[in-house]
């Protein structure tokens, strides 16, 4: 397993993402709510460049007590990364697909030392 520099902690604002070239592969490093997450840049669907997709809040459809619906909403606490190839959406925090949690992104190990972020692949 090889370790790659993914930049300084101070390079990342909250909500940022950086895709890092790690030899033959790539890893996406995300900072969400002050925490860092790292995922391999391969969608579980067709190996698409998942980490280079748009970051979107999860979409919800609130159901009223009378079982009716009126409008959709965003989940302000859940950020998804959306595969730009086919639209598979995964929670950046858990790596699980929104519609089927058995479909998951592959995690990359992350460590922080002396203000620098490292990922292992």
């Amino acid at each position, binding site marked *: 397993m*090889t*370790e*790659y*520099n*993914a*930049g300084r902690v101070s390079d990342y604002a909250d909500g940022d*993402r*950086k*895709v*890092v*070239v*790690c*030899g033959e592969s*790539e890893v996406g490093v995300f900072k969400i709510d002050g925490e860092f997450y790292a995922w391999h*840049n*391969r969608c579980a669907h*067709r*190996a*698409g*460049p998942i980490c*280079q*997709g*748009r970051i*979107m809040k999860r979409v919800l459809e609130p159901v009223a007590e009378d079982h009716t619906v009126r409008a959709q909403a965003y989940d302000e606490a859940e950020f998804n990364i*959306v595969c*730009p*190839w*086919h*639209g598979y*959406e995964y929670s950046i925090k858990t790596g699980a697909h929104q519609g089927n949690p058995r479909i998951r992104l592959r995690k990359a190990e992350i460590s922080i030392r002396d203000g620098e972020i*490292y990922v292992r692949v």
Partner: protein
Amino acid sequence: MNIQSKINPQFAPTQQIDVYTDTRDVLAHAKRNAIKRGLDDWFIVDIDAHHVESVSWKEVVTYIEDPVIRDNAMRYQMERIGAPPYGLNGDLGLRYQSVGGRIPHQDDQREAVTETDVHRDVVLTRRAMDSLGVDNMVVFPTPMLFLGMHPQPEMEVWLGRAYNRWMSERILAGDDRIKTLIYLPFNTPQEAERAVEEFGDNKGVIGFCVTSTRYKPVHHNDYMRLYSMIEERGKPLAFHAGYHWQDPSLATVNRFLGMHALGFAWCNMVHMTNWILNGIPERFPKLKSMWVESGLAWIPFLMQRLDDQYLMRPSEAPQLKRMPSEYMNTNCFYTTQPMETTHPKALQNTFEMIKAETQLMFSSDWPHFDFDLPQEICDLPFLDEQAKRNILGLNAARLFNLDPTPVKKLVQK
């Protein structure tokens, strides 16, 4: 600690893919995976990819035959900034395809093109072919897929012919690897016959296309001369699927996901049912029909339904000498996309029922949101290598009389 962690971080040149990203960067993983699978020496034909002809609509309308309509269209394109393309009736669902911008290549391809020796669409098609690992790509239009629902049948004739001429002169002339199926204005049978005669032998024309979203019975006597002409030429006739929110049978569907899932299968299910039960394969045994962009799951469903019903009511389909499913897996050909892969056992069963080894051909549907890759065929565990090679290119070589020598350059930058 190993040496990699001591050097500066290497960030990917493309951090977020958007409508400005070069096709080669969007599909970089596809190319890498094609190289890994050794597809360089496999002959691969993509039977169904698309360009967005409306981007070039200002050019296309100059090819309209009728001088009055041509002038009207050219003035409209010149003077109406921001208006929809002249004469096109693209369905409103086209606006939803990218899932609100989540799948940007479906929205637009605004990437830089510096080449000036060929049309921009030729450049974009080459980039897609070389990224996917494809030798020949059959390019279809996009909003024109809805022209069969146009309230003015003349408009389908005018625009269909203009597109065929523009395609021949501007796109096909630019690269031998690009192929087309001639757009037939099917709502006006005599004009469809004229299109076969006028364009059927042009360079790069390997067949003919009926866009399936329309309310014309494919078994009507008005089409028998057309089918005879096409059968005689030995080139296939494709039914390219689509959806349309004006279809009353789909009027209650409120999510594009539902419209797309049903519409793309439904139109071809209806046409195929009429095609088989009215004995078209018996009347035209050498006519090769091809069913495009409906996916595959509908075929075994329809085979089972028609076979069961046919045995109980053979007097209503007296031309048939075999079971409906037997016509469907011998006289009919299919394209793969969008291949339903989430239920592998069902997919394997589908391949067996449709005799995929001889009847199925790869298609990507690039750049649409549900595009497929050649690697998906390579990775199917239930196919041997010959079957994979057939589906990826050799079936198409036989059907379309293509030279099966790979010409692509599948090299990593």
